[in-house]
């Protein structure tokens, strides 16, 4: 099946390529993401056999088949639940959840917000193509699809805002084709202790082509993307001449110059979820799409605390089945 990953000199990308043919439509954004993840994994200093990729159902959720680690292609929406049991009982594993917008935000919304709330130390990669690819094109976005022939009446979630509402400890966004940025975000997600939630804008060229063209096309990208950097003012635009300022707690886009300087702008602070929420609710049409790490804060991890409790209990009393069976009132018949 696979060759041992421990004790080897140093693993490279090819060690994380499984023997299965990759079966996405030609041109699908999933290929790019797979490739970046396969590049980052060997650099994380984790033995290959400790990685586990868990997914739900969807095109994106086929991901685990293609990564030569342990993998579990589960059922629709439930990957966070399965990951929770695995990570809680095996905290030494590096657990990754791969999911889609339908899988994570539609059927799986509850498990998603609960894993974020509990803050298990796992990494979530949400491939957001704003469409159900596998079932051939339904969507919650206000667009015409097979299931919404006169346009959808649904207002879609903003995954970032939702994650912040669930008090996620690490919230970030990247883009399938932004290879460097994506690699960096994946690396940061791995490093963060607690649930790392990463939304990856992904192009489904068959059912929702160009959904993020603004953000990915050379011509429009700089004007439509706001790259977040900790401690840096919120500046964007081809000429980096526009920024976000707060007025009476209302964000507004300002043109730099003419008395407006970077000092007037909001400064990004990853440790402030309220700011992250404010930034999350920027975005098209009035603002640019923010990408990068919105928020990264420390709080206790469920898996760690649980294991500490088990450890503490074991340290206090040795397990003794005989004593357990004999608890309470007992009597002897001779």
């Amino acid at each position: 099946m696979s060759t041992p990953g421990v004790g080897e000199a140093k693993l490279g990308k090819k060690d994380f390529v499984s023997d299965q043919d990759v079966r996405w439509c030609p041109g699908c954004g999933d290929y790019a993401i797979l490739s970046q993840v396969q590049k980052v994994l060997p650099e994380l200093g984790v033995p290959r056999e400790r990685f586990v990729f868990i997914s739900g159902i969807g095109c994106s959720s086929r991901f685990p088949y293609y990564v030569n680690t342990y993998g579990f292609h589960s059922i629709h929406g439930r990957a966070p639940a399965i990951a929770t049991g695995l990570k809680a009982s095996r905290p030494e594993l590096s657990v990754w959840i791969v999911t889609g917008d339908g899988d994570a935000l539609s059927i799986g919304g509850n498990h998603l917000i609960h894993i974020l709330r509990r803050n298990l130390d796992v990494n979530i990669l949400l491939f957001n193509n704003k469409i159900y690819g596998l079932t051939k094109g339904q969507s919650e976005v206000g667009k015409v699809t097979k299931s919404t022939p006169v346009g959808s009446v649904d207002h879609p979630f903003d995954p970032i805002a939702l994650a912040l509402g669930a008090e996620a400890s690490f919230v970030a966004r990247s883009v399938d084709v932004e290879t460097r940025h994506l690699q960096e975000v994946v690396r940061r997600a791995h490093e963060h202790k607690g649930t790392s939630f990463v939304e990856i804008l992904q192009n489904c060229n068959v059912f929702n082509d160009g959904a993020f063209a603004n953000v990915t096309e050379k011509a429009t990208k700089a004007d439509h993307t706001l790259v977040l950097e900790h401690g840096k003012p919120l500046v964007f635009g081809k000429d980096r001449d526009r920024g976000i300022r707060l007025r009476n707690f209302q964000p507004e886009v300002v043109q730099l110059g003419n008395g407006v300087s970077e000092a007037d702008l909001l400064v990004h602070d990853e440790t402030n979820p309220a700011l992250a929420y404010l930034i999350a609710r920027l975005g098209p049409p009035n603002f640019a799409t923010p990408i990068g790490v919105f928020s990264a804060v420390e709080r206790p991890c469920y898996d760690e605390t649980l294991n500490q409790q088990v450890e503490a209990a074991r340290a206090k009393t040795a397990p003794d089945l005989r004593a357990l069976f004999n608890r309470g009132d007992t009597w002897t018949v001779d």
Partner: protein
Amino acid sequence: MPDGVATGARRVEERDSIVIRFAGDSGDGMQVTGTQFTTESALAGNDLATLPDFPAEIRAPAGTLAGVSAFQLNFSSLPVFTPGDDLDVLVAMNPAALKTNLEDLKPGGILIIDRESFHDQNLKKADYARSPLEDGSLDRYQLFQVDVTKLTTAALKDLGLSSRSVFRCRNFFCLGMTSWLYHRPIEPTEQWIREKFRKTPELVEANIRALRAGLHFSENAELFAVSYAVKPAVIAPGRYRNITGNTATALGFVAAAQKAKRPLFLGSYPITPASDVLHELSGLKQYDVYTFQAEDEIAGIGAALGAAFGGAIAITTTSGPGMNLKAETIGLALAVELPLVITDIQRAGPSTGMPTKTEQADLLMAMHGRHGEAPVPILAAATPADCFTMAYEAVRIAVKYMTPVILLTDGFLANGAEPWPIPDPDTLPEVPVAFRTDPSGFFPYLRDEETLSRPWVIPGTAGLEHRIGGLEKEYLTGNVSYAPTNHEQMMRVRARKVAGIVREIPPTEVFGAPEGELLLVGWGGTFGSIRQAVGQLHAAGHRVAHVHLRHLNPFPADLEGILERYRRILVPEINLGQLVRLLRTEYLVDAIGFNKVQGRPFKVSEIVGRCLKLLNGEEERS
């Protein structure tokens, strides 16, 4: 005779068995009273069985009919199988308790009531137009009207307790009375009180005083002309404790995991009557027990499956409504062939139904409640203590066959208690777990020749990285496959694997006539009622027998042969006929159902009555 055992100078009569029920308001502590009386009886050496009867979940207003809580105990010098049909004694703390319980009291039975509680307000709440104490309607019973409240108050008067606190000691006064009446030792109760109220010494004092006051009042007041002795039962030697089904279930899981030398992982979402297993296991972390209170039942089983992938002994617990939600993940567990025990502690349905009442109507769901061909072994416990054995067995089978296993118990077993011969941990069956670590010749779906189970390989094992999932898999490699004949092969091997579990089932015990007129086939919590009914009939010379199934899928290999040895087959169930359907389809026998769905167990007399009808030819075809 140990200190504190009530004797009294008056006439002592001997009895084989006594069925007693304590009934009062939810706030009156009837469950505690009953449980303590049970402990006293166990220590007195009797065999016994209990039946707690809870009101609907939310505490109803005090004194109302909906608020009545009761606890029934059958203790005996003979083997006991059920909590008893009709009552020898009823203790009723208020009019509502009297009203809802009186019909079960035998004519001539002992009825103890708290006279002061029969005031107008309480009578009205219980829908009594006039007091039953005054209209002669209780003439057929031995009525003892005791001023329980007044006497308790008097006993505690110098303790400076609020009247509410005093009122809450009344139950121990009653326990004192009944302890005297049946010669029960009160030390275990005193011990329990000391432990329970450890932090409030004045309540220790108050409750012990109330208990003793009840005992001494009975001794002195000459209220009862007779007291009763129930000799110790002849019980197999050994060490015993009382155990409820839910505790036994929890211990069975812990024991199996300890034997397997693996952590136990429970993923669960609270639901009546299953929550106590979660509560119980949450307190056993030192046994390497991980409990995860999930956001819902889907996450509960999902997490358990994740833990199973990681190598834990994984279980999930729920009741009917929650079982629906676990179906999809059971199907996944079966497709990926990981071990997992799903426990359904059945309650009265359909839908929300009557959450605190018992039923055994989830068998067919356990069998067929998933899409596709999705066979899962099913075990069912027969008695509260048997929950230990079957929980243990469920884990053993799940691990050996790499399969989800459904364990069925019910509300009656879960909350009921009986003496449990405490097993020696060293003599419990082994639960061998061997994770595969050898990469040579490894395939994720390489099957063991005998069990057909695939290897258990846990993440972290170098060189055995592989992927599993719910899409159809290639027979050996486990790769995704849509090949037509591969699908058929996989369907059939999954079915064969489960069918092969038949080799784990011990020979079926036939109680009663080895062949003859009538065979009663039961499963689950009806064990006691059927066994006792068949015992009576057999003793009376009828060629009747009882088989109680603890393996529902697959059935025992010898069952078909046994069925053939009887002219008629009767299947008593607390449902509208589920096992009976499985027997008919499997063996084409004209088994007939005997069904009762009232949220409570069969009475022995009901079963005896139905059998006699069949035996006397009054009913040829159902």
